[in-house]
């Protein structure tokens, strides 16, 4: 299979171009000037180091100076940074300028050798390997072969097993949150219980489930528990009767954890009644039960069944009826 077309007559290689001398090679004055330039560059580098040391020791870190375009800059940080930058940069410039102008720069030609080993070496290699392998005689020694296989197989298991305690098994953790029947919704932050009358139409409140006095919230709970409370006018809803029953006088509650990848869907547009997740722009329509109307999310946000307790505070009537947050293999999403 021919792959190249160059049997036709091509041009001749003119060879490495003639060496052109540099100014510093020919003219002692140019040489001197190049030396001085290198020296100045080294000096600038030294200046930079001094600036860094001075800023570190003497410049207080609460002084701000005005630099055009950049605004107020911290003098201490600027001194450290510019000092370090100068000391490094000009050191490099000095070395390179020295090499370019003064060091011998005739080009040298190295020859390449083909990588393929000689046939002799190859044959000797094959012979060595064959002889070595033959010494093992695995083909003949069936008992060793079998017992080796068994012990190697078992040997591979402990390293995997030793990693078992890296984490607990998921079990039901992805399916449950802290919300139970009667859990009060409290403001986040602030932990204040919320009366239904506290919300005006158009209001949104960030909430978490109430916790007992002195208890601390775990971050892994905060990753599942946040709920958005939104108040609309009751006539704005276009919900099925079941979902409508989960609202209370125009107040509707959704999990704040995006059903796509778990970011907080906290962005509520009061006029369009849409929720927007800032991570990947999934958009949810509150009037239709947080139905996805744009973006990569595939499921609506889980809705929390809410009502008021005897004192008028908003509470959950039941836990979420589906898993909160992103999907996973074991999730029954039907």
């Amino acid at each position, binding site marked *: 299979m021919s792959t190249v077309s160059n049997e036709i007559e091509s041009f001749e290689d003119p060879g490495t171009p003639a060496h*052109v001398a*540099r*100014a*510093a090679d020919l003219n002692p004055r140019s040489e001197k000037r190049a030396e001085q330039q290198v020296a100045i560059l080294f000096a600038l580098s030294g200046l930079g180091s001094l600036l860094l040391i001075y800023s570190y020791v003497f410049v207080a870190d609460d002084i*701000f100076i005005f630099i055009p*375009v*950049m*605004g*107020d*800059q*911290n003098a201490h*940080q*600027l001194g450290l*940074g510019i000092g370090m930058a100068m000391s490094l940069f000009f050191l490099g410039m000095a070395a*390179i300028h020295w090499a*370019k*102008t003064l060091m011998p*720069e005739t080009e040298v030609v190295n020859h390449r050798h083909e990588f393929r080993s000689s046939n002799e070496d190859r044959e000797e290699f094959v012979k060595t390997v064959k002889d070595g392998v033959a010494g093992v005689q695995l083909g003949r020694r069936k008992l060793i072969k079998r017992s080796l296989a068994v012990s190697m197989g078992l040997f591979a298991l402990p390293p995997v097993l030793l990693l078992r305690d890296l984490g607990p098994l998921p079990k039901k953790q992805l399916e449950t949150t802290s919300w139970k029947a009667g859990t009060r919704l409290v*403001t*986040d*932050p*602030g932990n204040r219980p*919320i*009366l239904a*009358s*506290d*919300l*005006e*139409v*158009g*209001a*949104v*409140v*960030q909430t978490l489930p109430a916790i007992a006095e002195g208890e601390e919230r775990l971050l892994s709970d905060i990753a599942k528990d946040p709920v958005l409370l*939104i108040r609309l006018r009751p006539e704005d809803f276009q919900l099925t009767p079941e979902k409508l029953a989960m609202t209370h006088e125009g107040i509707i509650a959704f999990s704040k954890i995006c059903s796509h990848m778990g970011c*907080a869907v*906290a*962005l*509520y*547009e*009061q*006029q*369009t009644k*849409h929720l*927007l997740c*800032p991570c990947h*722009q999934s*958009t949810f329509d509150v009037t239709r039960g947080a139905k996805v109307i*744009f973006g990569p999310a595939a499921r609506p946000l889980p809705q929390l069944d809410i009502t008021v307790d005897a004192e008028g505070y908003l509470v959950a009537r039941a836990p979420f009826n589906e898993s909160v947050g992103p999907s996973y293999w074991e999730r029954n999403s039907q």
Partner: protein
Amino acid sequence: MKRLSSYRRHKAAAPLLLVIALLGIGTTFNVASATIKAAPTTFARSAAIDEGKQIFLKGCSSCHGLNAEGGAIAPSLIGVGAASVDFQVGTGRMPMADMSTQAARKEPVYNAEQTAALVAYVASLAPGPAIPTDAVLNYERDGNTAQGGELFRNNCAMCHNFAGQGGALTQGKYAPTLMGVEPKYIYEALITGPQSMPVFSDKTITPAEKLSLIKWIKSAEAEPNLGGATMGRIGPVTEGLLIWVLGLGLLIAVAVWLTTKAR
């Protein structure tokens, strides 16, 4: 007079006359309109409502209806309260000029007296959120910066960005930057929920919490950038742009210099 007329054909005569004419017209206009503008600063309350109604009928009723009842393109103003009007008119958002995406902050059309008149008129239609007084707005004394930061990140950062620089909403709408916004307007926006912004009444975010929010916003505004220029405080997008343009650009420039032969 003869001496003056001898300069009739001077080179500078025409330009000079032009300048004098312009100055004259300008000054006359200023003086005249100043007399119109320089109304007495104290109003009888009903006089303010009347004036407000007149301004409303001229500048607002074409969208908001003759009785502020609203219409197809503008909501009802009955019950929006003094705070709404003060915010919308004071920041120049209303009267709305460009109807495409949302009302943008711009140079106010009405001055402080006219705004106060509009406020009085709309507030007289039905009870609504009031303008916070200076005593209420003492955020320096009554606010807590750290708590304000927590509140901000929970309630505001998702639209306005972690540093209050503003952010995108759907369909071309946006949450504007909070930098340089007067504390009064921040408070009013919170309690009235302008346009896409939800309502944060004093029951859900208490007045003290609102002051903490304002204190944090002001401290973020005043905070200089410690590590250098931030290119807008919007995060990794501008940082990535800088590293390709300035970082690689500078390094490639040095590499080209390094490999070119010296003269």
